[in-house]
């Protein structure tokens, strides 16, 4: 069998067994700086395109699907360059191939952005090889040929041949060094709305999710974990539990050994948990209740970790059982002290001293739980020499290394198959539950499915941190913004992005940061850090615009004009023109200035994950209750692959953002989360969602960027600004529902 490999473009062509073309390619989307170097010289192929003799095309999508629609949108990019007939295309989810996978990853809204060029090159290369095969057969030059919907055409001789008929011959064509990609106006699939390729399976209840996995002889495992952060296992009595029907074993699981150097996503909620293993979920749930465990406070300690980029550091974990009231006191204290200055432009102190007007406001938001509708779970079958795992996770390339260490099984003997994710939002990046499942299976010498109860899921989370920010703005006598100061911090992580707008637009700018350690585990949550700072910054700017007597959109546009014309400082990480572009478009699309007088209107705009979003949110008040009537949204995420799917993502992010800002809250008493299920943790429900959302995309030819996260942060600002219009009172502390109730609206 002839195999052609092109190292430059990371492509490999071969003949499919049974005939047809197999083109393997790489989606070099890894954000990892791999230090090992062991694979540096190896072509890492993680995606496949198969053209079968019957004309059917299979595209293997490498990225895990958790609702961002990549399983549809990424293959659309390949199929467009290939000029395939979309109905001939089926899409499969790639398993994790431990030898070769680079980035199978949800996080940072980067899948499309980082996969864009390689996906296109793969499709275009296959198309060229099919054309070259046809040219050989007809004995005509390739440049006389064209393609259309799965066929190669020779117009001059009025001949055509299907891709299926050419596929085997194409496998023998040399992969071209250079490949011509389509121009934007030549796209036929990209920019058209295509339905979710798994839609039918979802609406008929097919087993797509990790929690649906089953295997012969499979046991069910659940955990009992410390009731409070700050506690660890002392001892337990499992005598009663062991006697209960269907129960196979009860034992402690040390999730990550203490000397183990943890990687970036190795955040582990509790070091030691008790595993309860049995024949069925209900029986295990009952046995859990029969375990009498004693817990003890742990000492302050530190763990060795690696950052996302591979740098080693030590993380300090303080002892103690923390309270939300203590957190609030810490925040008040830290906010009143000087933080670490991260950026300073001009002379902020002098400017504030000489300002005609100074506005200072503080904002806060609590811890949040991810609350993926599918609770954490994973299937594991670990034998003496290998480990097979199956389930939902966001960062398999990190997790396989952790597993290898923990199980003492070589990396190449670990096989992780990815299922659809019943939501991720960052939570499934931290796969300690996968390690738990694997360790339990290793001990039981049997296939095991570990399931977290909803209570376990919510009370042993890797939460969104608690955040705080104080803003100051100085206006001169002509109401120009001459000084801007942000001091932001959090427990245990700061939300600050010092180089984001309005940095670059104000002559005198100061950014300070602080953080305070905690033993409550935190991690990525849809649009990390932005999910707080984006919304509150936009609330503050709204208030400053009002103090300056300016229209809030006009006020922002003036600042952006300044940042574009004569930017202050360096490293401003946004494009002022694109930022202004979404604001101008939303002003137009929302009929700004000509709104329905029964509605109260707020605007916000933000940049994150390489995309720009603006919202205008209208709400009404009925019987004292605010109701979001409509949201007009504009997005600049470059070329839009699948407009309806992108619109769905924006709608979801808006609903989720309103829900988190309005209702989301996780509080602690003596280290114990006070919300443990959906009766106490309030989630947005259908009647609280906006009645209508209109999403408009800025049309341009910029390569596509993030979509899952960017609409989420700014809607919180638009909501707060609209609520202010309805009540006359500014809101500073999330969840807003509490502040509204306290203010007696």
């Amino acid at each position: 069998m002839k195999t052609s490999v092109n190292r430059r473009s990371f492509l490999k062509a071969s003949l499919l067994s049974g005939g047809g073309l197999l083109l393997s390619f790489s989606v070099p989307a890894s954000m990892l700086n791999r230090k090992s170097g062991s694979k540096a010289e190896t072509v890492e192929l993680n995606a496949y395109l198969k053209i079968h003799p019957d004309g059917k095309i299979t595209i293997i999508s490498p990225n895990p699907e958790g609702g961002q629609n990549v399983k549809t949108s990424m293959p659309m990019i390949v199929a467009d360059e290939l000029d395939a007939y979309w109905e001939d295309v089926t899409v499969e989810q790639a398993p994790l191939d431990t030898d070769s996978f680079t980035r199978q990853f949800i996080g940072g809204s980067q899948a499309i952005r980082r996969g864009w060029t390689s996906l296109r090159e793969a499709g275009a290369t296959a198309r060229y090889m099919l054309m070259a095969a046809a040219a050989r057969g007809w004995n005509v030059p390739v440049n006389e040929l064209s393609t259309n919907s799965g066929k190669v055409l020779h117009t001059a001789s009025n001949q055509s041949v299907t891709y299926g008929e050419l596929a085997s011959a194409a496998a023998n064509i040399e992969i071209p060094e250079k490949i011509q990609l389509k121009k934007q106006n030549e796209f036929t699939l990209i920019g058209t709305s295509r339905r979710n390729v798994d839609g039918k399976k979802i609406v008929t209840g097919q087993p797509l999710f990790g929690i649906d996995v089953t295997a012969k002889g499979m046991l069910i495992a659940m955990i009992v974990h410390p009731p409070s952060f700050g506690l660890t296992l002392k001892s337990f009595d499992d005598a009663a539990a062991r006697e209960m029907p269907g129960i196979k074993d009860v034992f402690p699981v040390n999730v990550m050994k203490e000397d183990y150097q943890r990687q970036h996503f190795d955040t582990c909620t509790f070091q030691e948990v008790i595993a309860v293993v049995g024949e069925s979920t209900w029986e295990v749930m009952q046995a859990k209740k029969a375990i009498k465990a004693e817990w003890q406070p742990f000492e302050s300690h530190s763990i060795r970790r690696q950052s996302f980029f591979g740098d080693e550091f030590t993380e300090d974990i303080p002892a103690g059982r923390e309270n939300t009231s203590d957190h609030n006191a810490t925040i008040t204290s830290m906010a009143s002290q000087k933080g670490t200055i991260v950026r300073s432009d001009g002379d902020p102190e002098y400017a504030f001293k000489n300002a005609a007007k100074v506005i200072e406001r503080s904002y806060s938001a609590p811890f949040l739980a991810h609350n993926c509708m599918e609770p954490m779970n994973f299937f594991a079958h670990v034998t003496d020499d290998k480990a097979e795992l199956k389930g939902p996770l966001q960062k398999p390339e990190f997790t396989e290394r952790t597993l290898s260490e923990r199980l003492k099984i070589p990396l190449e003997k670990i096989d992780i198959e990815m299922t659809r994710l019943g939501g991720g939002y960052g939570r499934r990046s931290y796969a300690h539950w996968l390690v738990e499942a694997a360790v339990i299976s290793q001990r039981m010498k049997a296939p095991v499915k570990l399931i977290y109860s909803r209570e376990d899921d919510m009370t042993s989370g890797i939460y969104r941190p608690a955040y705080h920010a104080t803003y100051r703005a100085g206006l001169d006598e002509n109401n120009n913004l001459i000084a801007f100061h942000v001091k932001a911090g959090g427990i245990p992580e700061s939300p600050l992005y010092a180089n984001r707008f309005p940095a670059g637009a104000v002559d005198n700018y100061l950014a300070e940061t602080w953080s305070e350690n905690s033993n409550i585990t935190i991690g990525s949550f849809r649009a990390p850090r932005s999910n707080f700072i984006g919304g509150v910054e936009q609330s503050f700017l709204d208030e400053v615009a009002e103090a300056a007597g300016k229209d809030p959109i006009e006020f922002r546009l003036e600042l952006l004009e300044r940042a574009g014309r004569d930017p202050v400082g360096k490293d401003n990480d946004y494009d002022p023109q694109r930022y202004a572009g979404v604001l101008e478009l939303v002003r137009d699309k929302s009929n700004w200035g000509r709104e329905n007088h029964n509605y109260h209107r707020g605007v916000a705009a933000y940049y994150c994950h390489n995309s720009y979003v603006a919202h205008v949110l209208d709400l009404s008040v009925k019987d004292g209750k605010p109701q979001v009537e409509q949201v007009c949204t504009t997005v600049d995420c470059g070329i839009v692959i699948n407009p309806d799917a992108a619109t769905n993502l924006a709608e979801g992010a808006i609903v989720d953002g309103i829900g988190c800002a309005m209702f989301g809250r996780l509080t602690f008493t003596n280290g114990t989360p006070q919300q443990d299920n959906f009766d106490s943790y309030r989630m947005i429900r259908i009647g609280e969602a906006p009645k209508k959302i209109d999403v408009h995309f800025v049309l341009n030819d910029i390569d596509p960027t993030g979509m899952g996260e960017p609409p989420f942060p700014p809607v919180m600002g638009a909501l707060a600004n609209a609520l202010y219009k309805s009540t006359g009172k500014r809101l500073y502390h999330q969840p807003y529902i509490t502040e509204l109730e306290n203010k007696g609206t």
Partner: protein
Amino acid sequence: MATFTLKINGTERQVDVDPSTPILWVLRDHLKLTGTKYGCGIAQCGACTIHLNGNAVRSCQLPVSAAADNEITTIEGLSENGDHPVQQAWLELDVPQCGYCQAGQIMNAAALLERNPSPSDEDIESAMNGNICRCGTYIRIKKAIKKAANA
């Protein structure tokens, strides 16, 4: 342990389980009908919604002993070919994102339309209030129910 005969999606199935076992876990663990989802276990999220004699119920709160001798329909049995008007509307409007809650949403919506063939916005909001979607697909859910109502 006790033996129960259940009528599920038009077929009789026998299971030998503890009488207190919720029908949710009988479906998922014993009968391998995993379309019905576990979400909260306390009837607060709607992911486990099934039909009991045509009415939408939370299967996490329904003991198997109370379900025996009743007609049970799960998402797998809502239609023979996945073409119930609600399922079709869900596909046409491409409602799901992650998809986990959608079986429960669809079962609840189908039961709503059975008793109220042309629901108003308020009817839909009230009937669907118990079904959480963390991805936030509520707007499309509402549109799809209206589309199915007019089908």
